């Protein structure tokens, strides 16, 4: 019994430092974002605020890819399907139903639960590389259908989406205000991140990690991997769609490119650069990719060669990504600090 208690304390201490490392990374992310907002706000900038808001929105998409890849071991090559779906639903609601933030987000959430469930039942029948290919195929079908449907704007997408105010009861934030909407998006994304991070530390999250490690053994322990995978798929779909639902509020338009393979591929790049299986890495990855694109983009229009090269280098030499590299070091630092205290 004594050994068991020792073991338990050791495991719990280890988990605390893991969570501590992750909290530290997430906290620094928010701090960096706020520092950026203070500087950009003081200089009265618009362009970089919009760019940073877009990076945050795509970070949500990357988060959903990491939820599937890093925790459940399912590589989705079609996560843009849900991102684009959320953007389209939100755009249509804002334009034709009510120009309200909460209506757009609420209807997107409800619609994605249905669509995610249907797509999930189709997709999780496939394992391994077949899952990657089936999500790729589903997203391509959706992209071609949207691209050729005149009713929702076809290849032009939806334009002229009304500008809205985000109502918070006591006060309202104008989505047109660069700083205001940046802070709203930051809060929204950290809420999504926090929910995902919390879920991964529940028994459900442990189950997903068990599936990633060895799916065939899970049924022997008396659990259904099918149900857990379906739940993970639907949650990831919701995260992607809710992120997408903010896009039309920022840009005032929705285009079919949001559903294209490029969008899904970018999200995978963000996750790999940021660190697979860390969640917080997806946020950093999105910021890194957006910064890289705009910095290299000022020198050459062929920025994809450099981004592709960095991506390949990081797959070969740096497979744990930024957060995967930083986290264990932060944990050791935290552990040393608690020892001293």
């Amino acid at each position, binding site marked *: 019994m004594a050994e068991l208690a020792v073991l338990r304390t050791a495991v719990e201490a280890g988990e605390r430092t893991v969570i501590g490392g992750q909290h530290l990374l997430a906290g620094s992310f928010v701090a960096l974002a706020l520092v950026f907002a203070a500087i950009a706000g003081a200089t009265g900038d618009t362009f970089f605020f919009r760019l940073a808001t877009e990076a945050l929105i795509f970070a949500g998409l990357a988060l959903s890819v990491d939820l599937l890849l890093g925790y459940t071991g399912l590589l989705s090559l079609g996560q843009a399907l849900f991102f684009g779906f959320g953007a389209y639903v939100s755009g249509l609601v804002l334009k034709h139903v009510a120009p309200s933030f909460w209506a757009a987000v609420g209807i997107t959430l409800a619609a994605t639960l249905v669509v995610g469930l249907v797509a999930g039942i189709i997709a999780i*029948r496939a394992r391994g590389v077949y899952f990657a290919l089936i999500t790729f195929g589903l997203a391509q079908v959706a992209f*071609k259908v949207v691209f050729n449907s005149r009713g929702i704007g076809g290849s032009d997408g939806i334009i002229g989406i009304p500008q809205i105010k985000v109502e918070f009861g006591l006060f309202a934030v104008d989505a047109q205000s660069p700083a205001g909407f940046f802070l709203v998006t930051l809060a929204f994304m950290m809420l999504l991140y926090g929910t995902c991070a919390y879920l991964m530390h529940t028994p459900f999250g442990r189950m997903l990690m068990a599936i990633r490690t060895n799916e065939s053994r899970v049924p022997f322990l008396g659990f259904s991997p099918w149900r857990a995978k379906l739940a993970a798929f639907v949650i990831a779909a919701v995260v992607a769609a809710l992120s997408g639902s903010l896009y039309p509020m920022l840009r005032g338009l929705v285009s079919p490119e949001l559903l294209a393979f490029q969008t899904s591929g970018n999200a*995978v790049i963000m996750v790999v650069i940021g660190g697979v299986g860390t969640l917080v890495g997806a946020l950093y990855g999105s910021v890194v990719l957006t910064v890289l694109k705009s910095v290299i983009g000022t020198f050459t229009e*062929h920025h994809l*060669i450099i981004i592709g090269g960095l*991506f*390949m280098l990081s797959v070969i030499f740096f497979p744990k990504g930024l957060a995967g590299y930083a986290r264990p070091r932060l944990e050791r630092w935290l552990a040393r600090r608690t020892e001293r205290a």
Partner: protein
Amino acid sequence: MSEVIETLQFVYAPQVVNGLAIGVAVILMALGLTIIFGLLDVINMAHGEFYALGAYLGITLVAKGASFWLCLALVPVVMAAIGYLGERSLIQRVFHSKDRHILTLLLTFGLAIIAEDAFKLVYGPNPYKPESPIPGASELLGITLPNYRLFLIVAGAAIIVAVWLAVYRTSLGAMVRAAAFDSQMASSLGVPVEKVYAGTFAFGVALAGLSGVLLAPIYSVFPTMGKDFILLAFSVVIVGGMGSIKGAVIAGLVLTQVQSISSLYISPVWSDPLVFGIMVLFLMVRPQGLAGRLGHG
């Protein structure tokens, strides 16, 4: 009765022949993909870019004064060398890790991004339209068909048969199948598995390059040409069964006919979703595809 025959002759027959011309080209692409998957377990996301590279090498050589026929012989050799080096320097780096399926997929995906942008950098974004090496048309059963398409069908069919013979009727092919069935056992019997892996990858890449050269006179050559074509090739590989040569041939013929004939009834823009829909359906109901994997019967 004569009306039915006329419809068949003038409406369906040209579509069937056009479908066949695209079909053999897609099968060449799909064979490369499926052999690489069957042996190495690698989903080559850069296969479409290798196809584009073949086409670009072809137009470069023609611009330097080489004839189309010389290109047809030379490009696969160059592509094979590129494929061999690519396998040794990139795929092998992550091949022995636990997540090799996902890592090799990501690696080839990165390669595809770089290649597409490199084409834009070197050749510009505008399409090239090479001259047809066999101009003119001939009349067959009362319908006029471009000579080059007829040549493409015959040459493509010959290459497909040659690939089949190489895999199933030569000792080299037997080594490949043995390595696909059980690489450790094959290795202990003296098959140089590492070289077989690299050689097979090179072979698949050469096939992609060859179909690039063959198709360039029909479709134009442009940086994203691989991306548009690879989806069809992936659908063929999945419906046929990943790693199956027979399946790829059957699925290639059927899917391109579906695409070709359905475009008589629905707008061609909807034929892509139709083919992808069939692919998704297969992944749901019969993920192993029509036929068995390379080296497994």
